[in-house]
């Protein structure tokens, strides 16, 4: 928090709006969204599925230009520019023809030649995340959780400061998912990268983040921004604290309401 006042935020989104035109109808998707990820902060966005979170990610990644508003990273305006974020998608998207080691180095490779040190670093990290012995394996031989760890490592070793994680655990089974959450918590607390985490799992958001933005259903707007008060390093026990449960209840209520609104809109015949 002190950091935030002296150095510019890792990501600052100011009043971003975006709508798409489809069959002569304008569909607003993002409605005046503003949010901030400070240096070394873990920030989550939570909202009903189909609320325009991936459009926001495309805006941050520079694939989509917003109709209004700006994206700033580390103080510089980067609206519509690509290559400023590191990214972990929902599916691991490891390239099947690359070994795990080469996959993990892909993001670095895209931004310049990979040095011998970087390769050694990648190997050390692979061992650290429990993938020792799989350096030369191809992705299809790994389990879903292992693939996601490799995909996370690929994002972590990418040179950009801001990491955007797009519902990275939503395709995993419940047990693997909670394992991965704890794993991510440990690794993040050790490294403190700036993270923008997109999810629709409330407990996951509360466990991991310093701040949570609650998005409305489409067109997405920021409904609430909550600071998560629990001290770090956090342990899993925090999920049983009364405060945690209270926050969880509060968030669930908001989410349920948004879900209801969305269903009502759907039944009203208007398209999403």
């Amino acid at each position, binding site marked *: 928090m002190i950091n935030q006042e002296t150095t510019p935020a890792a990501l600052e989104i100011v009043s971003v709006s975006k709508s798409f035109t489809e069959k002569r109808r304008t569909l607003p998707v993002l409605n005046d969204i503003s949010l901030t990820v400070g240096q070394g902060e873990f920030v989550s966005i939570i909202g009903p599925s189909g609320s325009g979170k991936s459009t926001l*990610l*495309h805006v941050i*990644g*520079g*694939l989509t230009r917003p109709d209004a508003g700006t994206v700033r990273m580390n103080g510089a305006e980067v609206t519509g520019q*690509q*290559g*400023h*974020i*590191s*990214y972990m*998608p*929902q*599916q691991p*998207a490891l*390239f*099947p*023809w*690359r070994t795990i080691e080469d996959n993990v180095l*892909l*993001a670095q*490779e*895209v*931004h310049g030649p990979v040095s011998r040190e970087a390769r050694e670093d990648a190997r050390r990290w692979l061992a650290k995340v429990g993938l020792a012995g799989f350096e030369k394996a*191809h992705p*299809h*031989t790994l389990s879903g959780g292992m693939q996601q760890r490799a995909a996370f490592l690929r994002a972590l070793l*990418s040179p950009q400061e801001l990491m*955007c994680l797009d519902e990275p655990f939503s395709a995993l089974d419940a047990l693997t998912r909670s394992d991965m959450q704890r794993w991510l918590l440990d690794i993040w607390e050790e490294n403190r990268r700036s993270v923008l985490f997109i999810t629709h799992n409330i407990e996951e958001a509360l466990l991991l983040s310093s701040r949570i933005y609650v998005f409305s259903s489409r067109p997405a707007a920021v409904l609430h921004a909550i600071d998560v008060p629990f001290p770090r390093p956090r342990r899993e026990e925090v999920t049983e604290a009364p405060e945690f449960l209270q926050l969880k209840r509060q968030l669930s209520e908001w989410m349920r309401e948004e879900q209801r609104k969305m269903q009502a809109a759907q039944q009203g015949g208007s398209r999403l």
Partner: protein
Amino acid sequence: MRSWWKNVWPPLVAVIFFLLVWQLLTSLFHIEQWILPAPSDIAREAAAASGGLWEHVWATLKLTVFGFAIGTAIGLVIALILHLIPFLKQALYPLLILSQNIPTIALAPLLMIWFGFGLLPKLIVITLVCFFPVAVAALGGLKQTDPVMMNYMRMIGAGKGQIFAKLELPHALPSIFSGIKIAATYSVMGAIIAEWLGADKGIGYYMMLQKSGYRTDRMFVAIMIIVVLSLLMFGLIALLEKWFVRWKPKQG
């Protein structure tokens, strides 16, 4: 090895059975040798003629490999250009398909008129039959790039060239190889057709020669050689594929 044998023995038995029936029927119905020789006659002829045949086999093989290499290269280049310039693809892809409605055998005499009886028209014939399966397969493979991986590459800021080299091309390799395999078998056929129309050596020329002498047994020998050559080309590409696409998980 055991599983390999498991796959091989049923077609092998079928072939042996087929040859046996052929042999029996020719002797049972006393079919004249110049209409349909028995497999044993063909084998005998093959053994007797083998010395003089090498020259022809070698000529055809050279022509095939040469033409196949040129055809495949041109197919890949066409696919690349059409893929990178969408407007060109829109304009030329239908013409590409249309071009395949012209039978090669009808085009070949024209090529002889234009380019004489040398190597060039023969290479053009083989190129014409080879480039198409390669180009179409490569274009198809390049178009079907995994959207999730594509989105990932764009999100991390990869440029068009990097996306092509690191994602689209390796992703398309399996389909490119299936196109090349088809081209490999076509190339032998292309070479034979080219030799029919004007050559002084080669298996195609040998066939024409034996046809005029009603040496059906020798024509069968030629057909056998063509089959072997096709299998050889196919096997070679299949081996290359196995090496290049060794990352691909085995089915089942």
